[in-house]
């Protein structure tokens, strides 16, 4: 590029600077959302909403971690960048309690708020007021390869124990052919491996805090949980499971490299979709395992739409939420993409629909969701709400660091005792800083 052309380009750029194109639209709402498949599908149908209401929609689609960072900064500072935020079951009650979200009590009668699954509604409310409407909800369950299970001469019970899972995993493992008996999340991050191990620890009788908010990582159940997990994964798990999260495991399972996978119920529609999955026709489902202590290891989560209190467009935002989380939207997706692809886990009526309940994973998803109780998630009493998290503001920070310690143990960088001691120190330190 010669200097002359460079100068010319530069001046052209400078000209453009002065001519900024800004369009004014009647009503436009801005929605921050996560880049999950169901959300992206919804973006495709947004035109129909705009046609019906005249409300234009701008999407800000971000990867989960970036999304959290963006919406949290914006909500705590009252930045007003978004009219709808996609948040989860962890954020909703905390933000609602702080008065940062518009209560969803103006929902229309047609919307039928009572149709929302009670577990979801409970988890997205604070003191009885709903602050976010679930777009889809999930628990976790066992997904397994029926063909491999049969080859191993085993039969999966509807409600397996951890011991059975471990034995089955060992029996299905075939290192020669890269088949791992079991794939589980070990990836650091409170929403990744942290969520899994916390939910799993519940069934081993562990808890994050005792009733006085003291960290409990120095207790036997945590040691048992981590030892069992690491033992099973080194026997039958994939190499490098310490960096595997939902995505990595999904792709492993779809390629036929996992015998079992315990993860979000929404994954069921991905692993049974013949377009993406090589094992679509040989997947079975079972409840997440337990240890006979009365608590299973499944979690409860919802991606939900909420309206930040700082918005100028609360009415339009509510209209959108009604549209996106309605039964009509579910039918719209069913019509175009089939029942297996509708956003699951949010509404009771979906599971009463004969078209849906015949989908192979529908009943097990519902059973898993129904068996999860965020208010009563641990064997011994705990002061917090939430299964794979504790709904206090400090949890995300603490748990992301704690899960890093755990992952370092899975990767062989420290012993289980070191990991737990570090977790205990991190948690105690942070809880003290927060003034507990």
């Amino acid at each position, binding site marked *: 590029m010669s200097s002359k052309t460079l100068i010319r380009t530069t001046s052209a750029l400078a000209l453009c600077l002065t001519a900024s194109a800004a369009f004014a639209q009647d009503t436009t709402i801005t929605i921050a959302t996560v880049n999950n498949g169901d959300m992206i599908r919804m973006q495709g149908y947004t035109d129909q909403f705009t046609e019906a209401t005249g409300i234009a929609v701008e999407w800000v689609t971000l990867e989960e971690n970036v999304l959290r*960072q963006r919406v949290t900064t914006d909500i705590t500072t009252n930045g007003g960048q978004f009219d709808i935020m996609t948040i989860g079951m962890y954020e909703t009650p905390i933000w609602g309690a702080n008065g940062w979200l518009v209560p969803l009590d103006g929902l229309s009668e047609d919307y039928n708020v009572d149709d929302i699954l009670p577990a979801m509604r409970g988890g997205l409310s604070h003191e009885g007021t709903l602050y976010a409407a679930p777009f889809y909800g999930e628990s976790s369950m066992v997904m397994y390869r029926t063909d491999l299970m049969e080859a191993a001469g085993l039969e999966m019970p509807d409600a397996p124990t951890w011991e059975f899972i471990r034995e089955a995993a060992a029996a299905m493992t075939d290192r020669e052919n890269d088949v791992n008996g079991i794939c589980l999340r070990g990836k650091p991050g409170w929403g990744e491996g942290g969520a899994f191990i916390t939910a799993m620890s519940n069934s081993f009788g562990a808890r994050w805090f005792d009733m006085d908010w003291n960290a409990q990582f120095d207790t036997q159940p945590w040691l048992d949980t981590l030892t069992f997990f690491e033992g099973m994964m080194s026997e039958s798990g994939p190499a490098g499971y310490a960096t595997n999260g939902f995505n990595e495991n999904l792709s492993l399972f779809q390629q036929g490299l996992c015998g079992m996978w315990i993860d979000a119920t929404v994954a069921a529609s991905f692993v049974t979709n013949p377009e993406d999955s090589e094992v679509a026709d040989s997947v079975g489902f079972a409840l997440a395992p337990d240890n006979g202590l009365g608590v299973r290891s499944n979690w409860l989560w919802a991606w939900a739409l909420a309206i930040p209190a700082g918005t100028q467009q609360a009415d339009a935002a509510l209209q959108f939420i009604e549209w996106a989380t309605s039964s009509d939207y579910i039918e719209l997706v069913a019509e175009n993409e089939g029942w297996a692809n509708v956003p699951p886990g949010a509404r009771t009526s979906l599971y009463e629909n004969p078209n849906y309940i015949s989908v192979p994973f529908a009943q097990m998803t519902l059973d898993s969701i129904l068996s999860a109780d965020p208010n009563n998630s641990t064997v011994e009493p705990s002061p917090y709400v939430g299964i794979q998290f504790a709904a206090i*503001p400090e949890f995300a920070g603490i748990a992301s660091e704690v*899960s890093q310690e755990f992952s370092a143990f899975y990767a062989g960088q420290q012993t289980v005792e070191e990991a737990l001691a570090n977790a205990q120190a991190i948690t105690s330190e942070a809880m003290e800083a927060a003034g507990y």
Partner: protein
Amino acid sequence: MATQHSRSAARFMMAPAVFLLLVWMLVPLSMTLWFSFRRFLPLRGGDQGFVWFENYTRFISSSAFWPSVQTTLIIVGGILLISVVFGILLALLLDQPMWGQGVVRILVIAPFFVMPTVSALVWKNMFMDPTNGLFAHLWRAFGADPVVWLSDAPLFSIILIVSWQWLPFATLILLTAIQSLDSEQLEAAEMDGAGHLSRFGYIILPHMSRAITIVILIQTIFLLSIFAEIFVTTGGAFGSRTLTYLIYQRVLESQNVGLGSAGGVYAIILANIVALFLMRIVGKNLDA
């Protein structure tokens, strides 16, 4: 030529840049200092008044602090070492006569144009993924077990990714320096029977010393605050948490702005210690 007139004109011309940078430095800095003395928990009641040095003692006494400083220095040092050593070698190579020099030069500098997020994503997924990554395929082809890069060699992986981005920059500057070398001097040395090594050691390297210090200075400024590469790849796990990342965890994940701000002040102190050290060297060179 420094008349009184031009002196005041000079001040006048410098004023906008100096003033803007002063504001840009002072406003965030004073806000950081302010917050660092306060208990500020956005998710738990916001700003709750002065706690003075509590955040500072808490941040420095945290078990994560010193390891994070160490990690920062290892990562920055590793990248500097790689980019300077390989930068010199590449610059020497590119200076040799060859066919298609322009194209090779383009190939070598291309990574510098790739945004950090993209390069981290591409490396993490398409190369370092233990199942589907290209390295895993390669390792398997030779009958070896794939390396789980991000947990088995997290610092190496990050250094590799960032070095890939910054090596072109170093190469470019060093190449310009070599090209400015008087070829007669080299030829004279060759006539005198100086071998390749001694020519390199006595003529080329001293000539490049200034360029090397500049590469180190500029890269250090950028590398001390690398964030995207760690955020995308390991998320600070497996001992790859730098000071910058620790601050991120305090501010955004733990939502403790006061504590994070205190960390920010420590980071500035660390950066200035490193800078002072560097400026000593570069400062000398800037006089030349």
